[in-house]
């Protein structure tokens, strides 16, 4: 599903910063992978490249069999809309739109009609227990609720991949556990999932743990999340 070959990325700021120094990674369809590493190791950078939110300097990136390189903004928008759902640490909900409108927005960009859009968005909100919160604005929701809204928004277009950058970073341990359970359930429906985290407890819930260090993949650890004891705190 995701195939990265020798990916390089340099930030040209005041001083050029070579953040990714040749990343090779394959993520198969239906896999649930986590990326771990110290702060500043390039986890977010890598995920943004995978999500076509940022470009890369060198290497090859194939997404669902398509070469992702030098795309026009239009093509990039289409790829993001069709294949990818994003979940962010800071939720990135649009503050002046209700939960329902936020969830329905990706469908708007797909050209889905209003009725169908709202019905579908409501269905996803309902699935995450947010039916009664549909008309609330993000600032009226708790952190966990906001993250569930953003998961609903990521899923509403039935993407092939979910990319989550520290999805539990702003949540307490109990809410984190709930959100991780939701993501595991989503993955169980066959959706590929890549989660960036620096918490071992979160990574332990994924099948494959990619360790990033100094812009390179240090190791890829196989893991059996079913061995995890869910009665224990994950943080």
């Amino acid at each position, binding site marked *: 599903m995701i195939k990265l070959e020798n990916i390089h990325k340099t930030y040209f700021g005041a001083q050029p910063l070579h953040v990714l120094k040749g990343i090779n990674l394959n993520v198969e369809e239906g896999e649930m992978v986590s990326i771990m590493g110290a702060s500043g190791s390039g986890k977010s950078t890598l995920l*943004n490249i995978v*999500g076509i*939110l*940022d*470009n890369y300097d060198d290497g090859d990136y194939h997404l669902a069999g398509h070469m992702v390189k030098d795309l026009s*903004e*239009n093509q990039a*928008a*289409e790829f*993001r*809309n*069709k294949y990818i759902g*994003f979940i*962010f640490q800071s939720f*990135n*909900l*649009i503050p*002046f739109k209700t939960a329902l409108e936020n969830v329905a*927005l*990706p469908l*708007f*960009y*797909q050209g889905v009609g*209003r009725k169908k859009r709202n019905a579908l968005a409501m269905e996803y909100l309902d699935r995450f227990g947010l039916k009664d919160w549909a008309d609330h604005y993000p600032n009226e929701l708790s952190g966990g609720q906001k993250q569930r809204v953003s998961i609903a*928004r990521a899923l509403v*277009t039935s993407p092939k991949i979910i990319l989550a950058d520290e999805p539990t970073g702003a949540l307490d341990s109990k809410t984190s556990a709930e959100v991780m359970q939701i993501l595991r359930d989503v993955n169980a429906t066959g959706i590929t999932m890549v989660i960036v985290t620096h918490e071992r407890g979160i990574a332990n819930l994924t099948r494959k743990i990619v360790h990033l260090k100094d812009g390179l993949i240090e190791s890829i650890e196989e893991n059996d999340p079913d061995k995890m004891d869910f009665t224990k705190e994950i943080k």
Partner: protein
Amino acid sequence: MFNRDFWSEIFMALRRNKLRTVLTGFAISWGIFMLIILLSAGNGLKNGVTSNFADRIKNTYTIWSSVTELPYKGHKAGRYIMMTNKDIQLLESLYQVEEVSPVISKWGTLIFGEKSRSIGFNGVKPIYKNIEGIKVSEGRFINENDMKTKAKVVLIDQDTNDELLRTTGEMTMIGKTVFINGLSFTVVGVCKANMWGERGLAYAPYTTMQTIYNENKYYQMEFTTKGLDTKEENEAFKAELKRKLAALHEFSPDDRRGVWIDSQMIDSLETMKIFNTINIFIWIIGIAMLISGVVGVSNIMRITVKERTNEIGIRKALGAKPRSILLSIVMESLVITTIFGYIGMICGIGVTELIGMAMESSGGLSNGNGMSVFVDPTVDIGIVISATLVLIVSGVAAGFAPAWNSVKVKPIEAMNYR
């Protein structure tokens, strides 16, 4: 693309930024409003002043008798120059002169039934009507037949007419016999007051007055010219005429007085020049206002787009295409400029029309002499619409630059923008 969702997104954005929307809108409405007010004030002034002359034909000259200032050929200064039939002959001998209209002016008492009133009594030719721009409200003016038959007919002015009707209870004065200085005249017409607002006037045929008074003395003489179109031609003719009259009456050709010669053409050319200058000035102010409106819109659009950088990043991550972001920002500024430009336009037109109507019912704003100075202060609707269109187009352009910049930013940069 331009479906209900599209518009609801735009109006949502406008509602969300109420203060911004209102401020921008106000700048635009005000710009258009003031432009219209300015232009119509200019027009009102122009219409007001030109309406005083509008009904007079332009190729007209007036000569007034006056007093010499310089001694000349044994004549002392301070001599009164009175025009006579010789002056008429002189004028008629000039090829530039079309028709001479001497006026015999007398004071008289008009008596009708019990009522008597003092009037200015003038013997005039038919051409006098055009030269002075006299408006006949009832009946007719003096005609050639009156001149030929030396008919004892008379026109009275509106004020005299109304007073006579009021005191005698008659329905009309037309066809009635009145006595002026003891002689009977038949009233053939009623005319409005002349451009100076003078009241108590009667006009009889020139030939009739000549027979009655055997007059060979003229304080004032008017004539029309042909072939004099430019200011230069008129100035040259005026100088030539002054020399000839000076020779005839034996006063110094350098005398500033002796006779006054006034050219309607020169006056109106001068007036037009002044108004063209005023007009250019008003346009410069107006365009400056439009430009400041456009700059305002563009600034505010830039700030709004900056404020919305995060949102734009999120939308891109969700699959928004550049076109849709570009369009929605441009349409936002288009909607603001259109709605508020329209409001300003309607208010401007409304106010000027109201003022115009109020002035019409009160007969326009006049100075002490009854000359109007402000008439019909309205603007050509075509100009208003084009000014509004210019603003709308600029509004789109103003929104386009920041929109284009925001589209070029990478989604992750936009999302991380603080």
